[in-house]
């Protein structure tokens, strides 16, 4: 035997007593709440409680100057609790609701399938007039009641793509977030989708005692368990409603897009995608039908071309190439390169100007041979081990402008475009390639693809002389000042190079040969660049990017007009009108506006 194995068996009584003591404590508490205290009992068995969801006001959306863009209007949903809907006189009820018997059965089965004891929507969004008529008679039909809801209204028919729309939740959405119940609304696209959590607020609940005749008798326990709905936060966008309206006006009848950014903040001032639609179309009971109509429209108005259309940037890309070559140290702004006009090799020049040319003239005249030679010099620079390392230098600098990647902010569904990687060329040329092989890159053609949003951002970065704020929609969330901060990106290229490039871009408007001299705005300095994107499927796309005023840019803009030929013909005048509208608030050149509006771009 081991001596210290003392028998502790009397301790079973201590443990047993604790068990009994706890059981007695539980019973005492039960005795109190079940027998002594009356406050937990509730009224007669025949009464049932009805939980009516109190929907919060969805947050309103304003533009940067406080103009209302989106608000709410009341409609009524007819609710049903299938297990309580007994002994319904279907024929009279159908007459009251203006539906036929089989529709009634379909709706009833749908509600029952969801749940027979939790309420669901029987008919949604009944207007105020109909509501009055039906509500009067509703006491005949137990299990049915009304619930107030709000729908979105748009005082101005603009910015449909940016604002987005709300729609009924789908099953997967309900599974992802328990907040949503069948028939609830959720942001489906644009601002409504990204800021769903802020906009939606918090649902409240009103509990009422309902008697067997479907009459609401009283608040349950005096409303002690009711919760008030909390309205969603209002959102102030960086958008300028006037500029947006004007942009949509200018683009009417054309296919393409405009993106305007405030360079100092990265806020979107206007985002136009044409053709567009009236946001009021996607509201209310007709939403489904209208949505399908838009979906099947051959012009694809639902697509937001500003963020998902990709185009070869063409000559608008020359500034970036110029900047990279300057930064690599192989040349300065004053280094001359010869141009033999249409006889140049391997890339022809499409403009007529003197030779040799320096950076400013090259930008002003959009000289292809200059940028090919600058690109070639950079690729052959002794600074790099080989051409592949030089290409990597080019790639790193180009992508630092936000190209080749999707936008990392509150703009949903942006596409990344394309900046080719060194691995890509290694693969398609089996490792053997050099500056000559990829010469198209020097003039913004080849594999490069950008979105109008990215292009506007490049304009902002050049205007800012070396940095940009990730482009975003929102200016202010829920009243707190500047509560949303998006990333600042600094580009690793010296500021003096940006100054040189800006000087060239200014002469695009002001120079004697400037490709946008027709769009010159008296009294406002503008830096810009035309572009023509080769389109294998039809006529070329007209592209323009600009910022103004040159010294302290307030607006950076990109315009793309599809199948419209040269950048100088269409995109440049539209950009210049937008700039004038934003900075000056009025248009001083009605002839230019008239030309843009009345002459159809090539179809």
């Amino acid at each position, binding site marked *: 035997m*081991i001596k*210290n194995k*003392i028998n*502790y*068996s009397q*301790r*079973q009584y*201590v*443990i*047993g007593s*604790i*068990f*009994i003591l*706890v*059981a007695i*404590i*539980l*019973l005492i*508490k*039960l*005795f109190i*709440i*079940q*027998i002594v*205290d009356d*406050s*937990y*009992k*509730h009224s007669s*068995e025949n009464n*049932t*409680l009805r939980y009516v969801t109190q929907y919060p006001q969805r947050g309103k959306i304003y533009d940067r100057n406080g103009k209302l863009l989106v608000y709410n209007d009341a409609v009524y949903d007819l609710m049903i609790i299938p*297990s309580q809907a007994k002994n319904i006189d279907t024929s009279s009820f159908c007459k009251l609701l203006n539906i036929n018997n089989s529709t009634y059965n379909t709706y009833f089965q749908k509600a*029952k399938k969801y749940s*027979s*004891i*939790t309420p669901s929507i029987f008919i949604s969004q009944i207007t105020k007039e109909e509501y009055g008529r039906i509500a009067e008679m509703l006491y005949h039909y137990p299990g049915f009641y009304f619930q107030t809801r709000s729908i979105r209204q748009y005082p101005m028919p603009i910015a449909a793509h940016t604002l987005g729309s709300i729609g009924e939740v789908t099953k997967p959405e309900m599974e992802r977030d328990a907040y949503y119940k069948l028939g609830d609304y959720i942001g489906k696209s644009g601002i409504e989708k990204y800021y769903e959590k802020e906009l939606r607020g918090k649902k409240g609940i009103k509990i009422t005692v309902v008697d067997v005749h479907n009459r609401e008798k009283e608040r349950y326990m005096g409303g*002690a*368990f009711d*919760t008030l709905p909390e309205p969603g936060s209002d959102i102030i966008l960086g958008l300028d409603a006037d500029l947006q309206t004007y942009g949509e006006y200018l683009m009417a009848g054309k296919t393409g897009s405009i993106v305007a950014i405030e360079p100092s903040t990265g806020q979107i001032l206007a985002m136009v995608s044409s053709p567009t639609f009236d946001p009021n179309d996607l509201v209310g009971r007709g939403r489904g039908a209208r949505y399908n109509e838009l979906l099947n429209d051959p012009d694809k108005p639902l697509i937001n071309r500003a963020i998902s259309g990709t185009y070869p940037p063409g000559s608008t890309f020359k500034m970036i190439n110029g900047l990279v070559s300057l930064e690599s140290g192989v040349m300065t702004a004053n280094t001359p390169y010869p141009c033999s006009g249409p006889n140049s090799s391997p890339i022809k020049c499409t403009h007529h100007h003197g030779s040799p040319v320096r950076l400013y003239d090259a930008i002003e005249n959009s000289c292809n041979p200059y940028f090919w030679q600058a690109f070639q010099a950079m690729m052959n620079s002794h600074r790099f081990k080989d051409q592949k390392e030089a290409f990597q230098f080019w790639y790193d600098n180009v992508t630092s402008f936000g190209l080749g990647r999707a936008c990392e902010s509150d703009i949903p569904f942006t596409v990344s475009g394309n900046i080719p990687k060194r691995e890509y060329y290694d693969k398609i040329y089996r490792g053997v390639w050099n500056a000559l092989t990829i010469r198209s890159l020097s003039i913004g053609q080849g594999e490069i693809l950008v979105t109008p949003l990215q292009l506007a951002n490049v304009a902002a970065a050049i205007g800012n002389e070396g940095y940009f704020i990730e482009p975003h929609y929102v200016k202010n969330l829920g009243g707190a000042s500047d509560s949303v901060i998006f990333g600042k990106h600094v580009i690793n290229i010296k500021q003096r190079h940006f100054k040189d490039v800006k000087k060239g871009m200014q002469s695009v408007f002001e120079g004697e040969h400037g490709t946008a001299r027709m769009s010159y705005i008296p009294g406002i300095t503008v830096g810009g660049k035309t572009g023509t994107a080769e389109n294998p499927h039809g006529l070329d796309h007209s592209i323009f990017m600009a910022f103004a005023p040159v010294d302290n840019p307030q607006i950076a803009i990109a315009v793309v007009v599809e199948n419209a030929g040269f950048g100088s013909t269409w995109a440049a005048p539209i950009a210049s009108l937008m700039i004038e509208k934003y900075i000056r608030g009025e248009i001083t050149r009605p002839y230019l506006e008239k030309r843009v509006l009345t002459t159809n771009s090539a179809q």
Partner: protein
Amino acid sequence: MRSKTFIGKIDIWLFVIYLALVTIGLLSIYAAAFNADHPHIWDFSQNYGKQLVFIGVSMLVGFVILLIDATVFNAFAYVIYGLSLLSLLLVLVIGSKISGSTSWIQLGPISFQPSEFAKFGTALALAHYLGKLDTDLTKFKTKLTAYGIVFLPMLLILAQGDAGSASVFIIFLFVLYREGMGGRILIIGLVAATLFILSLCVSKWYVMIGLAVIYAIFLLMIDRTKKNVWLLTGILIAACAFVFSVDFAFHHVLKPHQQTRINIILGKEHDIRGVGYNLNQSMIAIGSGGFSGKGYLHGTMTKYNFVPEQHTDFIFCTVGEESGFIGCFFLIALYLALMLRIIHLAERQRSPFSRIYGYGIACIFFFHFAINIGMTIGLVPVIGIPLPFLSYGGSSLMFFSMMIFVFLKQDANRMNIL
């Protein structure tokens, strides 16, 4: 000599209590989750149909346990314990998240909760360790090992974010007490619990001022030998450290919803609309049952889904509402009978393993019983642990059943131990 078959040897009282609890559970889940479109209890698309399957599988596993050799569980205690720890580690890697904690492993259509397994494994391992003839609980090293066996799974469960399930392991202190750990452990536990609640109720600085005052008083009263002064100072420092760590744990380890639950119980927050809403609904359901209840399937609170999670953690509401105080009294008596019967049987075991294991499971049942019922009537914070045999859920029913059947087998075999 009794019947030779194992059926004849098992303790019929314990078995009957078990059957009664499982049956009450099934009927309560049927009432709580009743769906008028699927009125049959064997409709396997509904929770009650599924629970019926869980009961069938548990019984089958129980039957197999009764057939195999009784000594297996002692011999393989560490293996089972090891497997349960492994499954706890696994859940941290591949677990799926359900209501804030990562405590489930999804295997095709079956989801499995390793923390339930761990309770069973820990009861076996602790019994095996303490049951060895050379184990001496007065030795420091032995104590440390025993604590280690208990706290290792507890920490792993805490890492899943499931503080409720982790708290169950505290109850093994009772087992250690029964096996000869100084009675001080219970007193320390009690003092710790008091300090715990105090430091949540009032600022930790007040608690420490209080401790300092008590320290000063004791210092004046006792014989101030060097040893006593050091001891008292040590206790003061330990107590202050405890208060600090409680405060830290409350604000940094507990999730906001758990903090709120505790605050409501302590009366620091009156939130009858948020978390308090569940509790109030639960108390209304139980309170409205009155003396004799509203009758089976006639609970209005139950019928209209007013109490969230009613078929799982709040199953006691159904009993309270539909069968009233009478039913609650009967159910509590039944649980008490279960626990006391297990203790009674445990005391008659010849093998220390069987005895300690019996205490282990009795204490687990006790903790679940006290905390679960306590939370539905507002005596303790809302901690999401199931009511044994009644709450809906395959993992918990399976392992609670295995605990019972393993003990029944040990008891039936007790005469064969020399």
